[in-house]
């Protein structure tokens, strides 16, 4: 139980990273690869957020007067993840646009079948 208590978020984060990497390495369908990227991103974000967490901490927002600064979780990783999420969406959108063009050009989403650029 204490193992879970200490590591469950890390397991979740790196589980997602591993599955994402696996999809990217094993699959050849372009859209599937992009799904892998999105899962990978989510995993990385979860890792960053768990780095900043503090046991029994509260959200770093002074929403009502009288809240004490003690015991608030670290705001920096949250700020970083906010940035990372947006960057992730940017990459995904561009990748999907390329996938659509790729399909129009080659009539398939299979990367193996595109052989324009083998020496």
């Amino acid at each position, binding site marked *: 139980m204490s193992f879970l208590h200490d590591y469950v978020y890390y397991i979740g984060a790196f589980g997602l990273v*591993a599955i994402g990497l696996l999809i990217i390495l094993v699959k050849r369908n372009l859209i599937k690869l992009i799904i892998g990227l999105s899962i990978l991103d989510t995993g990385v974000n979860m890792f960053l957020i768990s780095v900043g967490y503090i046991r029994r901490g509260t959200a770093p927002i002074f929403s009502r007067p009288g809240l004490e600064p003690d015991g608030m979780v670290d705001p920096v990783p949250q700020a*970083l993840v906010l940035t990372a999420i947006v960057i992730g969406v940017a990459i995904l959108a561009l990748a999907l646009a390329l996938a659509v063009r790729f399909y129009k050009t080659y009539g398939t989403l299979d990367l193996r079948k595109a052989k324009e650029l083998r020496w």
Partner: protein
Amino acid sequence: MRATVGLILLAVIGVGVGISLLAIPFGAPKTEIGDYYIENAREDTGATNVVTSVVVGYRAFDTLGEVTVLFVAALGLGAVLATAGGKRGRSGVEPASLILSAGNIFLFPLILLFGAYIFTHGHLTPGGGFQGGAVIASAFLLVYLSSPGKRINESGASLTESVSGLVFVAIGLLGLTHGTHYFLANFLPKGALNTLFSAGIIPVIYCAIGLKVGSELAGVVDNLMEETE
């Protein structure tokens, strides 16, 4: 072959990261920087949401870069899809039923208002320019789904994008010329804590970001739905 190499790679990364995680115990007390921000954010930036004060205050330059990344992606997506040339238009989409279309007309202004609420209150409550912008974009997404023929006003969207981006940069440069002589310095009055008009440049920047992100994401969806023959 590829899969084997991949699995070996995964295993190596896994072992390495697993070992290093032992040095970062989960839930341990935070770092000096985090402490500093939580202690001083209200005084330094005037925002009660510390995450916002980090995003748009201490690390505002990152956010400027991040907005630029989204801008780059939206532009790139447009360029990638535009080079196909040919006739444009959407085909194969039938008009949606009354439930969707009437419901959408009813909800559209309310969703936009909600998005504006989120980005104007970014320094007080959870949320901010990016979340608000995404809400606004989802309102446009609803429009596309309910009436497929509808197009976003492209020049209006690109005008909003450019102008709100320029507002961000201009605020940064004003910080350089006014008062403190630092780029992106908070040169506006900080106001009283927990009121809407507080935190100096933060709400202004968040409004610009909200409009920019909203118009960009709406443009992204619009561009992707565009059928080129």
